[in-house]
């Protein structure tokens, strides 16, 4: 091999240490594997570019470069092809290559020295760094999650995991770490979950965008919808954030079985252990969920209906590039909004005046039933001759706002099921309003 022309003989990918014949191919590889947005599959050019894209378009932060080996996941390093590789990594690579070369040469030459096994060295260098660099890769399940600072150099996402996730259907709800084999005919609805599938959360990523869009509040944590929690559980669990469920105890609810006080809270711990394998394929999500902690969506706020999150008119209906809530931008319910309209204002705020006149709306009285025996004039004449016995409804005439004597409810035939009552029940008239 000649002297080092470009930085190293053959182009190699800094993120995953793979060799390529040509830099062009290397770049294509990087774009497809390391700089590809997991949400929309857009291929960016660099790591930082990907991070910015995710933030701006999907409102999501990513912690590390996808499919990168531990230690090489730094999203902030601007590497393109062979450019931008830190010098020390270059040297290390050279060393490794040289060692490999020497090894092969040695082998050829010194076949006898079979005692010396150079293999030991090999794995060494390449892993040292990662090892060292491997921050707490362990995603320390027990959390202190809220905010697993993404910065910590990439919680070593198991390299393989990301690649495993094929283009996620954006429509897929963040349901669980679904079972890879999605049920056929399972439209982008729920993914059958059989249980937690240890590594892979195919379902998660796609689900994120929309919900995320609404949670601008959390800085780096892409506020993952609680569903994602399911995944994380591990972290979450501890997260304790488990809002202090005000244990009004009272173990009732037969189904409860063990309804101990801390119901919702405690069970978390067990999960943590089991879900380890799950770990964060999407560190972003895990953390978020961690912060969120299982059922509580309230993120930081505990117990009390998180006023911080949600319901702030502004956040309520964020329209983002990816989603739009079809709901008025307010903190009140649709019914409350509608009820404010003048046309729906109750007509006479009756407060219980049992006057005959009152019931204009004929609420009480309405009716006819006593008429069962042909009483022809049911009520104190408020409504002149209500057609009783009318099997049909008064076609629509119902004044929308209840006022007016109108209506008259057709007779309740009731014969079959109900023994004709007949009695004008003493209460007849307006029926005893309170």
């Amino acid at each position: 091999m000649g002297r080092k022309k470009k930085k190293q003989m053959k182009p190699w990918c800094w993120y995953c240490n793979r060799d390529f014949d040509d830099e062009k191919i290397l770049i294509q590889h990087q774009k497809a594997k390391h700089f590809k947005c997991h949400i929309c599959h857009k291929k960016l050019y660099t790591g930082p570019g990907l991070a910015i894209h995710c933030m701006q378009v999907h409102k999501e932060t990513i912690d590390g470069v996808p499919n990168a080996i531990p230690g090489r996941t730094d999203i902030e390093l601007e590497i393109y092809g062979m450019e931008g590789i830190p010098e020390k990594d270059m040297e290390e690579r050279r060393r490794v290559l040289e060692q490999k070369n020497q090894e092969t040469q040695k082998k050829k030459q010194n076949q006898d020295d079979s005692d010396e096994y150079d293999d030991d060295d090999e794995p060494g260098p390449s892993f040292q760094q990662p090892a060292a660099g491997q921050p707490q890769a362990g995603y320390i399940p027990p959390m202190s999650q809220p905010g697993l600072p993404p910065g910590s150099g990439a919680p070593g996402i198991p390299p393989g995991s990301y690649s495993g996730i094929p283009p996620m259907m954006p429509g897929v709800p963040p349901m669980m770490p679904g079972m890879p084999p999605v049920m056929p005919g399972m439209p982008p609805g729920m993914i059958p979950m059989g249980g937690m599938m240890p590594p892979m959360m195919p379902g998660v990523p796609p689900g994120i965008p929309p919900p995320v869009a609404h949670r601008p509040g959390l800085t780096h944590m892409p506020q993952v919808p609680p569903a994602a929690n399911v995944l994380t559980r591990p972290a979450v669990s501890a997260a304790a954030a488990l809002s202090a469920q005000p244990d009004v105890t009272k173990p009732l609810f037969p189904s409860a079985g063990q309804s101990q006080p801390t119901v919702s809270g405690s069970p978390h711990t067990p999960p943590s252990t089991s879900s380890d394998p799950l770990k964060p394929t999407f560190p972003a999500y895990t953390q978020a969920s961690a912060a969120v902690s299982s059922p509580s969506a309230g993120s930081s706020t505990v117990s009390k209906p998180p006023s911080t999150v949600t319901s702030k008119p502004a956040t309520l209906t964020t329209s983002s590039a990816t989603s739009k809530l079809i709901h008025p931008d307010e903190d009140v319910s649709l019914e409350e909004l509608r009820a404010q309209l003048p046309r729906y204002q109750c007509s006479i705020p009756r407060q219980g005046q049992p006057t005959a006149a009152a019931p204009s709306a004929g609420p009480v009285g309405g009716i006819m039933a006593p008429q069962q025996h042909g009483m022809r004039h049911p009520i104190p004449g408020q409504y002149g001759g209500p057609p009783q016995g009318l099997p049909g409804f008064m076609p629509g005439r119902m004044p929308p706002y209840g006022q007016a004597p109108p209506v008259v409810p057709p007779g309740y035939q009731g014969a079959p099921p109900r023994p004709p009552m007949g009695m004008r029940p003493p209460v007849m008239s307006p029926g005893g309003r309170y």
Partner: protein
Amino acid sequence: MSLFGTSSGFGTGGTGVFGSTTTDSHNPMKDVEVTSPPDDSISCLAFSPPTMPGNFLIGGSWANDVRCWEVQDNGQTVPKAQQMHTGPVLDACWSDDGSKVFTASCDKTAKMWDLNSNQAMQIAQHDGPIKAIHWIKAPNYSCIMTGSWDKTLKFWDTRSANPMMSLQMPERCYCADVVYPMAVVATAERGLIVYQLENQPSEFRRIDSPLKHQHRCVAIFKDKQNKPTGFALGSIEGRVAIHYINPPNPAKDNFTFKCHRSNGTNTTTPQDIYAVNAISFHPVHGTLATVGSDGRFSFWDKDARTKLKTSEQLDQPITACCFNHNGNIFAYASSYDWSKGHEYYNPQKKNYIFLRNAAEELKPRNKKW
């Protein structure tokens, strides 16, 4: 042709109200249309309990009325009676014996409608519109539970003008459900409270909402032993959370799923997210139905965590739904829910209630419930 009970083609069930309609977007599912629907948006639907023979459907509407229809086996619906309030009716429910219907209205009162006599009398009073009303039948007491926008939850013995009990809530009641001995109330500001009803109602636990948006509807589900074990909570953000009260593994057992959204897989255009207006559980299969502002209904199997079916899109939002007592009939109402504000309200537009044979479509997938 027996509409309910076993297969067979319904749809031919005469409703006679509308003629042809091949592909009318108001009824793309070609379901049976209930005759004489209310004149304004339908806020609630409820079928009679099994204690009564036959199927009777009540529907409350923003036209201040609550109507009762008899649904016959051949699919015919016969209007039977109606009652009025002085304000829009927001919720209605049946007593356990099917003789009375309780209605709750914006006029801050709740009424008890005796169907036999067709008389209604006021049984409750709040300081604000009553959004939710449920009948509670306990071994040692029976009462009506009313949840109001005045932030109180009151319990009424129908014979007395004063509530038996009044519980303060953190916020306005938006929806509630009762399956003895459990009651769940979801309030504004994402509040969520579970009550236990044994002996007397009391607050059991306040839960941190699994959802990040305004709560809109809630429905309790039962376990295999027919005991209430959790609930499904829907929000305005096209999402439903399945939450168990005491699950062995909450993180794993509780989950949420997205629904009632447009552009499922298409990421190029923004996705429209619609509110979930109502959730109902099938009384036999334990599977659930959700209806949304997008004008669709969907059936889901929460145990298999899969979607069973999604309907075609109706031209109006679907505002209410319910199953009859044996799960053969699924009723859903098509009317405007105000999701796009008052500009889209057209008082002339007809409101509909449709009935669908639900015996087959809601069977659980794989795992038997």
